[in-house]
């Protein structure tokens, strides 16, 4: 970043929003991090007040401030709960951008975010991770629980999904065509879910285009304030899907990024904005597309003798505001026993890099999720977010639980057997 930019970086554009907070504290129960740590700096109100302190020049950006701002899950629960209409998660994003511009990202984050943004480096990183998992960590006794993350159980595909399939995946009978935005996790660690999405769409006479040149949606970069890098990827993706009328995502975070956050990123580029708006309109989460656009026929499903429950990812439920469709789809499967999960829409503890930087809090949040899952008596947990699949499955496995966590598409693909 050029020096001039660094100097001009400020929080002035959010001052008005910072003053909206009248400190009632009603966001405290909505903040899982606060409820776990019970420390005001790690609450939505605390973060907003600290950001206000920095914006007014009354507080330095120091370790305590960075921790407060970085400890946000971006789960958006506080934004829903706030009576005054403050959007703390957006203020946290503004503060992270400010830190990125004024002091740059710490080296580890810079490497991770840069790697995810670049398809070649991303591929290399996942294969290295796979190598290390198989050749190193699996050989060390007891080395499976790395800071609450089930490293040994973490699936990493040898070849990424995008490289496993052709660009055009034709249905036997073709009645329509959609693009598929694959996303990092489905590409490298849940290829089976990628295949499931293609299968369900093909079964319903929809051709699926998987553009080879698609890149990371930009969620991780956006989350830590590197808006420029996120924009760079956004531009590529927007152009890549130009000729398609519908783009399917299989990840709540990717979906919310493509559909909502791109609009924020380009709000100050009026020339490009119409193209972004057009792109946003084409984004469908897998669940809404199969429910509303192709109208699944439950008659075609096999009988499914399982008790299932559903976990809403944060970006699925509060980002994309999708809660009804996945449940309705599940309930439509013959003989399935659906049971509602307590606190179904509360964070599972993953929240991107949060789980490794604040692992003690993340582990406690996941423990509660596992407890709630256990209480349902369900043997299958369904969700629409790959990151949640990994986090919840890992947390279940580390505590010796047998329940399986699957993506909604995995379950539907199986129902079509």
């Amino acid at each position, binding site marked *: 970043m050029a020096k001039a930019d660094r100097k001009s970086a400020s929080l002035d554009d959010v001052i008005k929003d910072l*003053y*909206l*907070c*009248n*400190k*009632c*504290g*009603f966001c*405290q*129960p909505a903040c899982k991090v606060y409820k776990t740590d*019970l*420390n*005001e*700096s790690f609450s939505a109100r*605390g973060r907003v*007040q*600290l950001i206000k*302190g920095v914006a007014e020049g*009354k*507080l*330095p950006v*120091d*370790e*305590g*401030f960075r*921790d*407060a701002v970085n400890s946000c899950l971006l789960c958006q629960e506080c934004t829903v709960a*706030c*009576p*005054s*209409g*403050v959007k703390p998660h957006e203020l946290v994003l503004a503060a992270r951008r400010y830190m990125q511009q004024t002091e740059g990202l710490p080296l580890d984050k810079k490497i991770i975010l840069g790697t995810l943004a670049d398809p070649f480096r991303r591929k290399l990183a996942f294969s290295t991770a796979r190598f290390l998992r198989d050749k190193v960590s699996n050989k060390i006794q007891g080395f499976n629980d790395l800071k609450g993350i089930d490293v040994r159980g973490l699936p990493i595909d040898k070849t990424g999904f995008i490289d496993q399939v052709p660009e055009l995946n034709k249905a036997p009978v073709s009645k329509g065509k959609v693009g598929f935005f694959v996303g990092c996790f489905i590409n490298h660690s849940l290829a089976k879910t990628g295949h499931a999405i293609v299968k369900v769409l093909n079964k319903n006479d929809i051709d699926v285009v998987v553009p080879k040149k698609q890149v990371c949606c930009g969620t991780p970069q956006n989350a830590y304030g590197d808006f420029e890098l996120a924009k760079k990827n956004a531009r590529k993706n927007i152009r890549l899907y130009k000729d398609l009328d519908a783009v399917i995502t299989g990840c709540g975070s990717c979906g919310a990024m493509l559909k909502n956050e791109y609009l924020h990123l380009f709000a100050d580029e009026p020339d490009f904005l119409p193209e972004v708006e057009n792109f946003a309109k084409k984004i469908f989460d897998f669940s809404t597309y199969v429910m509303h656009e192709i109208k699944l026929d439950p008659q075609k499903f096999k009988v499914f003798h399982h008790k299932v429950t559903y976990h809403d990812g944060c970006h699925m439920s509060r980002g994309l505001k999708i809660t009804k469709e996945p449940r309705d789809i599940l309930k439509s499967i013959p003989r399935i026993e659906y049971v509602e999960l307590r606190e179904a829409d509360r964070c599972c503890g993953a929240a991107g890099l949060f789980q490794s930087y604040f692992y003690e809090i993340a582990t406690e949040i996941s423990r509660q999720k596992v407890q709630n899952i256990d209480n349902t008596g369900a043997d299958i947990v369904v969700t629409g977010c790959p990151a949640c699949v990994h986090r919840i499955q890992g947390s279940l496995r580390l505590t010796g639980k047998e329940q399986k966590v699957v993506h909604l598409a995995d379950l539907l693909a199986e129902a079509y057997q």
Partner: protein
Amino acid sequence: MLTQAMIKELTAIVGSQNIITNQAGLAAYGYDATLMAQRPVGIVFPRSTEDTSALVKYANQVGLVMVPRGAGTNLSGGSLPLENSLVVCLSRMTRILEIDPKNFTATVEAGLVNFDLQEALEKYGYYYPPDPASYKASTLGGNIAECSGGPRCFKYGVTRDYILGLEVVLPSGKIIEVGGKNFKSEFRYDMTRLLVGSEGTLGLVTKAILRILPKPFAKRTMLAIYNKVEDASRTVADIVAAGIIPTTLEMMDNLLINTADEHVKLGLPRDAGALLIIEVDGYEVDLDKQVRLIEELCEKADVRSFKVATSQAEADQLWLARRTVIGSVGRRRPSYSLQDVTIPRSTFPQMVDAILACSRRYDLPIGILAHAGDGNFHPLVLFDERDASEVERVHKAEVDLIRDALALGGTMSGEHGIGVLKKEYLAWEFSETAIEAFRKIKRSFDPTAILNRGKIVDLAAEG
């Protein structure tokens, strides 16, 4: 500032995970839900009564003033660190020690959030009646310190009516237990009642034995909408005069209907002058008759519409709107001044008139929110803290509202406490002899004013 030696000693007591001394942390504990702010010198989180006692003893040794704190949702500045204070935050003492439905009691640590207790009691079919609007965030220790009320007070009373016993760390660091699980006991000096509502000036409550009740068999939630706030206020007086005691009788005026609806999106009529949320509970067979009586009284006062909630979800949404309404005014102006003046119920309409007049006098928007059944008003004066001339007018309006309430035979504080905000008006309500008695009580517990100094009353020795 804490010296390195002090930090070392405090850390030895609570552990390194339970002490904060960095700038951001100090800033985060320098405010509550009022507009005031002042950074403390440190924050400690005791995890037990013994920790708390050791902390207080150490603070006495080195002369550190302490401020007790729970969730920091205080509305009178009672939990604000005023001067070089150490915040003793009880938020991490959250255990439920016992739920004893057979004896109608629950024993809890002070940092437990009111709502978290309600959730635990739900499994037993019980509940704890005091329910301040902040109950999802505020701690029971904080509720006890402020003697919090809530919408259900009209029928069920306030916090003091539900505290059977307390464990308290005195300003000396010694631990005492007052009251107990017995429903009745012939108290000599009723220490429990003296401590409830003492705003953390007499001791640090670490545990409490609460009275709990079985959940009512049935409930009806009614929504009455009026064209004019005066009509709603007439209904309130009529219901009280008719000898009906609803569980709750809440009023919101036009301004608040609008901000609440912007948050909760209930589809309330934006042009209505006021609404009443009325709830009755008890045995199923009694309720329809009560609802009919209330409906008749509403109609007598020219109600625009009267509706009984048809589902629990509908009632819950209405309550969500009511409970979050104070925060929702942020949608109009960034700052608010909130009073909790309380007047004899029969003078309800006069107080409404006084608030309307005050709003006109100072050209300030004032939202009228009231636990109408209790005569407890929450006038919300809206402004922008960055506008100096507005701030001055707000201050004048506050003074007038308190004077108006006192003139009607009321009190300046129904449930938020005196704290710092209302300290300067104390002499209007209490005689010099009474205030001196307050000081003597404070001195007998805390001669050096080491605990929550400068709240409610100042001791001469404090300078």
